[in-house]
């Protein structure tokens, strides 16, 4: 990727509290991010292993902006490769999913094995002894561009870099254990929803790590008495700052008084007419009702009651982000549990009772910072550091995101 200009965006100081607004709007910086972050030493969520259970299964996905294919080969190994023919650069897989012995490009019928290596070239020896590939052509070095792959708790991640830390070191042991705890059994894929956010990818990453906003913006929580910042809970910031988990427990410290004192809107204490929506089972064994986990730069993992979803965050240009909600259950769920998870899926997604506002809030920021230069947004809640905390009215994990971001970007 030829870089023609260098971004002029700078942080005002070495701290993590002041975030320059043009970091969300600068097209040159965006190109740098694609190369240094998405094509750098990061683990990018690609798909669920459960989406490609059989030999020959494939799905298409993205790493950053780049289309990729994830396959399962004859031996059961998972491969991730760019969805771009080594010959003329056309898409190889045109369908979102399928099963194949070989991957074949429609343009000139070049075929690839499930690990991405070049298998066949049409008219390799020419026709009638004329044309064809030159003898020096090395098929071994002309496969689909392959990425390194790791699978963790049924999640498939890929990276372009040989320097990327092994996954557990990358997120740190605490975050790794929380993923193990949420995705504790083999997964079954329930489907996906795709939401287009009118904002920069980093604004959604901040939102995902923003425990402070949860009960203030998402007033379904307040209105139906589901979550309070005064609940017992906390935040763990993972290795390097980029990953986090925020969790909350129910029926502890449900304190209306703080909210009344603050004059916070929508404290109406309504009741659901059909409370079966929240007929939840405590799968955590610790009364946790909300767990939001992130892995830099493209994964959100959510467990709200019994609704488990893997959120893939994809940049689609400097001002647009695609959010893919992949919902899962466990293979040993009975029918009642599956229905429960599906009913609770009303809580999240593009029409989610407790998530729909996240679809527009980033756009409100993106609209408001248009044309602004030299000014900053601030994340001062809970101090200036990135240490784990039992507070929830804090922006500690947003600062963690910026710590990781600055490290990867060298800013």
């Amino acid at each position, binding site marked *: 990727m030829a870089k023609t200009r260098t971004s002029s965006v700078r942080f005002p100081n070495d701290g993590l509290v002041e975030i320059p607004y043009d970091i969300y709007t600068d097209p040159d910086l965006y190109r740098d991010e694609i190369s240094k972050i998405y094509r750098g030493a990061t683990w990018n969520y690609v798909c669920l292993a459960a989406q490609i259970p059989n030999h020959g299964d494939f799905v298409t996905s993205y790493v950053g902006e780049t289309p990729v294919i994830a396959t399962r080969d004859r031996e059961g190994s998972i491969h991730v490769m760019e969805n771009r023919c080594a010959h003329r650069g056309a898409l190889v897989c045109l369908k979102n999913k399928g099963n194949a012995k070989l991957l074949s490009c429609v343009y000139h019928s070049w075929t690839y094995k499930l690990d991405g290596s070049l298998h066949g070239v049409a008219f390799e020896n020419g026709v009638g002894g004329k044309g064809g590939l030159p003898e020096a052509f090395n098929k071994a070095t002309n496969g689909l561009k392959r990425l390194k792959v790791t699978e963790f708790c049924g999640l498939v991640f890929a990276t372009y870099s040989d320097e990327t830390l092994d996954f557990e070191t990358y997120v740190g042991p605490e975050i790794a254990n929380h993923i193990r705890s949420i995705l504790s059994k083999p997964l079954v894929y329930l489907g*996906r*929803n795709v939401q287009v956010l009118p904002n920069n990818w980093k604004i959604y990453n901040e939102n995902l790590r923003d425990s402070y906003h949860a009960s203030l913006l998402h007033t379904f929580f307040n*209105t139906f008495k589901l979550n309070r910042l005064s609940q017992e809970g906390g935040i763990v910031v993972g290795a390097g700052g980029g990953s986090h988990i925020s969790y909350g427990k129910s029926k502890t410290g449900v304190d209306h008084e703080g909210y009344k004192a603050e004059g916070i809107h929508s404290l109406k204490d309504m009741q659901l*007419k059909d409370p079966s929506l929240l007929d939840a089972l405590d799968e955590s064994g610790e009364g946790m009702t909300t767990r939001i986990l992130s892995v830099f730069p493209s994964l959100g993992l959510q467990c709200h009651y019994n609704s488990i979803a893997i959120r893939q965050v994809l940049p689609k240009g400097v001002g647009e982000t695609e959010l893919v909600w992949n919902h899962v259950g466990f293979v040993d769920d009975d029918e009642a549990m*599956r229905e429960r998870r599906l009913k609770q*899926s*009303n809580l999240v997604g593009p029409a989610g009772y407790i998530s729909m506002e996240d679809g527009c809030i980033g756009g409100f920021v993106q609209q408001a910072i248009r044309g602004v230069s030299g000014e900053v947004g601030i994340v001062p809640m809970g101090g200036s550091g990135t240490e784990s905390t039992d507070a929830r009215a804090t922006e500690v994990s947003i600062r963690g995101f910026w710590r990781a971001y600055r490290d990867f970007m060298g800013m």
Partner: protein
Amino acid sequence: MQISDRDLYFRIERLYARYQRCIDDDELELWPNFFAEKSRYKIISSENYEQGLPLGIIDADSKSMLEDRVASIRRANIFEDHRYKHFVSAIEVTEIAGSIVSIIANYQVVRIDIRGNAMLFSVGRYKDKISFDQDPPVFLEKLVIFDNQRVDTLLALPL
């Protein structure tokens, strides 16, 4: 059912006209009344639907859940003001079983935002089961299968 084809189609057309006007004219409090007490309302992508995957974006199995949805839209959820215009066409009766009529129809929903932009927000088909036991008839099941997989910003108002 002892009803001529022409009368049946007329009554279905009228049901859809009232249904879409209820949403488009922001009379959401009346919207659950189009459904039987025990009914299913589900919005699902054609991708999930055609792969046999059960996940929807709204999935309700009672009229009370729809009333909760309206209460939440009115009093809890936050989004920019916007309105819809529904366009329903190609209504076809696929089955008549006693007083229950199954239909399939195409729909488009244009969304008009607060800044004055109109966009094609959702396009797909309805697969509905309508009970003519009562007048006006009510939906026993309304399956909204949308083809445009990428949902712009959010879906607050029903389709």
